[in-house]
């Protein structure tokens, strides 16, 4: 299915929760959804027989300076099509529902986004820092991250 058709399907199903389609200059195209609706949209994307996006290829946090975003790259082994899904989050309270019960593979990606961006995935099975030590301060992939001078007495 083409991106526009997927967008129309979603728009018809979820209405205002599906905001826009980012098509030009985006490969694959992104369907922008409201953060609160991420879980329902995901479940529909996975379980609708016409869409059946059974693989979550990638889940990335992005810092667009004025706001955060979480980008989902989906692929369907059955239908052999791909689409992106994006949810924009406010910088102050970046949080959205988890999708690890839709795609169990999301867990590590979500932990990574939490670790490096500080994005909170509500309802996650296990949301801890994954790459950095537990007592690390800050979230390094944020654009305003300042490198610390010392960590445990060793110069960074």
């Amino acid at each position: 299915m083409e991106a526009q058709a997927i967008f129309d399907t979603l728009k018809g199903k979820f209405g205002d929760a599906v905001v826009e389609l980012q098509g030009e200059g985006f490969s694959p195209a992104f369907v922008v959804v409201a953060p609160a609706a991420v879980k329902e949209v995901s479940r529909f994307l996975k379980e609708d027989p016409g869409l059946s996006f059974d693989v979550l290829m990638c889940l990335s946090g992005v810092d667009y300076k004025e706001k955060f975003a979480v980008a989902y790259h989906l692929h369907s082994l059955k239908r052999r099509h791909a689409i992106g899904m994006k949810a924009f989050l406010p910088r102050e309270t970046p949080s959205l529902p988890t999708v690890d019960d839709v795609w169990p593979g999301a867990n590590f990606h979500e932990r990574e986004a939490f670790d490096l961006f500080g994005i909170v995935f509500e309802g996650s099975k296990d949301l801890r820092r994954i790459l950095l030590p537990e007592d690390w301060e800050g979230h390094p992939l944020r654009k305003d991250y300042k490198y610390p001078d010392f960590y445990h007495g060793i110069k960074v």
Partner: protein
Amino acid sequence: MTVRTDALPTQEMTINMGPQHPSTHGVLRVILTTDGEVVTRAVPDVGYLHRGLEKIGERVTYAQFMPFTDRLDYLAAMNCNCAWAWAVEKLAKIEVPERAEYLRVIVCELNRISSHLIAFGSYTADMGAFTPFLYAIRERERVNDLFEMLCGNRLTYNYARVGGVSGDAPPGFLEKTKEFLDYFEPKLDEYNNLISYNKIFVHRLANVAVIPAEEAVAYGLTGPNLRGSGVPFDLRKDEPYSVYPKFDFKVCVGTGERGTPGDCFDRYMVRINEMRESVRIVRQAVARIPDGPVMAKVPRLFKPPAGEAYFRSECPRGETGIYLISDGSVNPFRLKIRTGSFVAMNIFEKVTRGLMIADIVAVIGSLDIILPEIDR
């Protein structure tokens, strides 16, 4: 195998496996909770090699990031080089000369062979047979020689460029490659005779840590790990990029040859068979490589248009997906690298429940993880 646990009151023991352990393939740490020899829970703790590649990517230019992709998966640096080049080319819509694409395919497949050789060798070493490991290294050295001839380094090649490759193949390279293929192909049968069908080896691997196809898909496994579960999905075939559609090769899948489809043995055999397919691809590529330039015209201060692209390519450890956001400046705005090992680690806790300590080692080896890919 059934283990009775109701006989005696026992206490569980927490054991720390790694980050310094001979068979965690680097600095993986696994926190094992065991009941005697039986593992009730194995929680991986990664990040001991987190070097912040994604942050580095935002601070360097597109061309400068190429050497860092070498260190992303040092066993398959060529594949990562090319993946980065392909991703940037997809973002900036650059046409690459055909000879360069052929050279990329040749080095990618050669690197796949040498990477699978390490996977095969270290796996047998983990299982207690140290000798096949040294045989694998013996063959790997020959691939290293080829790469040395091509780009001057043995491990971190930095060979691909945005728009082509850094240099044409030196005279004699293609002949040497053919020579290597003729030397290498019979060795695969030697490995199979030596260890693959060894009774102890089969008993250690068959029916251990079975990942059913649905589960493998749900967890997003890719590459040999997915194919080991019997899902015939290979990006080179199903989402073709570069000049791969021009070659004839088979997608190897696990068939449950000695046990259940999706067990450790299947994942192991997929890698052995893939080496054979890689040999076939390289043979065809060497025979058909066209003449011409190896580098497209790319400005020195390269600025792709603003936009976002996700490119995925088939690396030895699964799909390496590069999500690239450009704001039109010389640096990437954001890049995220999704790697096969990282995803494979996610399923680790699930498949290791109820196995024995020795099986944990078998699972780590069969998923063929490499730590810089997980930690980046």
